[in-house]
């Protein structure tokens, strides 16, 4: 049985105004099965949002892409808009970063969901409204609130509405880009609980794009850590925390304060990620790595399988 979503060797380049290109995504591959939750983790500029947009076929005009994005076996990247469109919202859906603030302010939330349902031919009129009511209830919004405008709802409610909208056409995969970043910790807990329930009860597969490692630890089964446009480690969330095989993964966890360890040293990683508008020699993490050695400066490590579904791009894993 083929995976629900498969990304193979994805590359994305952005044209730069001053000439040249930014190589924002550099050979990303991942798979997602039904009901699975994958965390795509990294800091700003690592390419995680660009990867998400590429999967949805929503890259801007200034971008060019290579590789394959297979949805139920069909390559939607190659076919361009014509092949991406039928799958968008129907098989794959996305809740954009800041979606809760991007809802149409002059339409009620109910009418926005009804419109999505009708546009994709999933129902009309009364049937669409009934489905809208169900969707709102499934995200924890009382169906009576369908007649409210976005500004009448709290931040948490607006985020739920954005999720309901993304689920309007019953997609199998939901990509959520920083779904809780702007929310208070209690509201964040409510939204994470909602996403958890949606995956459990409806078999939804989730790609959670975020910089927040603890959120991934709590909600996801597996994680892919991104740095400088590539996946540097991929493993179960348990392995990523307890037995990381890439220094960046280890340091990122060490840099995250945790209530379970309030007296420990919090790491910071000196320096900054490399520029992606010029070719990189050696490992992109080399200048900031605490375990780098000579090979790291000149040879770029490939993302190599380590068995047990794990992979890491680090020379430290090379056989002696």
């Amino acid at each position, binding site marked *: 049985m083929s995976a629900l979503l498969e990304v193979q060797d994805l590359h994305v380049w952005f044209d730069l105004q001053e000439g040249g290109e930014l190589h924002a995504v550099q050979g990303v591959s991942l798979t997602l099965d039904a009901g699975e939750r994958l965390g795509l983790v990294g800091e700003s500029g690592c390419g995680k949002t660009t990867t998400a947009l590429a999967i949805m076929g929503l890259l801007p005009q200034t971008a060019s892409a290579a590789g394959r994005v297979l949805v139920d076996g069909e390559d939607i990247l190659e076919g361009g808009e014509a092949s991406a469109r039928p799958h968008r919202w129907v098989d794959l859906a996305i809740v954009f970063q800041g979606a809760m603030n991007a809802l149409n302010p002059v339409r009620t939330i109910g009418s926005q969901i009804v419109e999505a349902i009708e546009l994709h031919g999933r129902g009309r009129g009364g049937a669409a409204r009934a489905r809208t009511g169900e969707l709102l209830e499934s995200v924890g919004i009382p169906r009576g609130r369908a007649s409210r405008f976005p500004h009448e709802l709290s931040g948490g409610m607006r985020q739920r509405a954005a999720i309901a909208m993304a689920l309007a056409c019953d997609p199998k995969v939901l990509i959520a880009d920083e779904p809780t970043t702007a929310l208070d910790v209690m509201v964040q807990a409510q939204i994470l609980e909602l996403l958890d329930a949606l995956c459990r009860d409806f078999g939804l597969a989730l790609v959670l794009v975020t910089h927040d490692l*603890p959120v991934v630890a709590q909600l996801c089964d597996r994680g892919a850590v991104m740095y400088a446009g590539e996946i540097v480690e991929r493993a179960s969330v348990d392995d990523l925390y307890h037995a990381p095989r890439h220094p960046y993964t280890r340091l990122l966890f060490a840099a995250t304060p*945790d209530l379970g360890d*309030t007296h420990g040293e919090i790491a910071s990683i000196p320096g900054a990620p490399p520029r992606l508008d010029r070719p990189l020699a050696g490992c992109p993490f080399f200048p900031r790595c605490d375990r780098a050695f000579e090979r790291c400066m000149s040879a770029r490590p490939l993302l190599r399988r380590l068995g047990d579904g794990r992979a890491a791009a680090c020379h430290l894993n090379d056989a002696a």
Partner: protein
Amino acid sequence: MRYPIPRGLVGTVGRRPSLAVHAVDGVTLSVAPGELFAIVGESGCGKTTTAQAVLRMVEPVSGSIRFEGRELTGLGMRELRPFRRRMQVVYQDPYESLDPRLRVRDAVAEPLVIHGLGSKAEREARIRDALARAELSPPELFLDRYPHELSGGQRQRVAIAAALVLEPELLVADEPVSMLDVSVRAGVLRLLDGLRQSGLAILMITHDLSTAARFADRIAVMYLGRIVEEGTADDVVGNPQHPYTRALLSVVPRRDPRDRRRPEILRGETPDAIRIPSGCRFHPRCPVAIDVCPLEDPQLRRPRAGSSPQHRAACVLA
């Protein structure tokens, strides 16, 4: 403090406005030199307003703010000025807090210029010193740069340098690292910690309990304009006595996937500060509210099972 809504907006009966936004209601706190005091809470709890009141950027309707024993409320602008020098602020957004047209040198010089301090040579020396203390070394590398040439972390350090150049005794830091990448945060927090160790008093506003737990000496948890629990960081994080504190701590995600504690997720969201619940402000959402809670507004007092002598909680059950 309360913001009375001006008559024109609300349409009141009689001479006094009938509705007021009680942004902060009855907050008492103190920060000692060499101490980092964190105020934590969710949006609308009043933590930022409290900080602004301390800086006298908003006027309290009642209450007192003392700086080294001297009462600040009721002082006029000119009388306030010498105190203003001794407390400085660092804001959340490193991309907004620096004037994009000013080079680093001029941004850090500005407070000195405003307060008419020092000759040009003296200012140059103080600017370099401030940059060094903000760990922007060597200063030459940064003096002539514009903000857009710096990373988020570097900008925040420039903002800290500008706050330090007047050698304040109190630094108010409003979410100083929340807009920085994770790998950069610890560096800035450790900088603040180092400044604290050399005697600076720091009042830090943050929604991030994990950061407060690690870096604060004392923590106050605010809800709807009130402090509901306070004490040392160990008190509040290790032995929380207020149901809100407990719920908040339980829902903070942990790094370790094996840490599968049951989160106590409160329903709904913090009510509007314009419609404060009767009795205990927290009672409508409290998982352990009893019959007296809607009737009685509990004061902050020592909890029965508290830890340090400074531990306080505002709950009839504590």
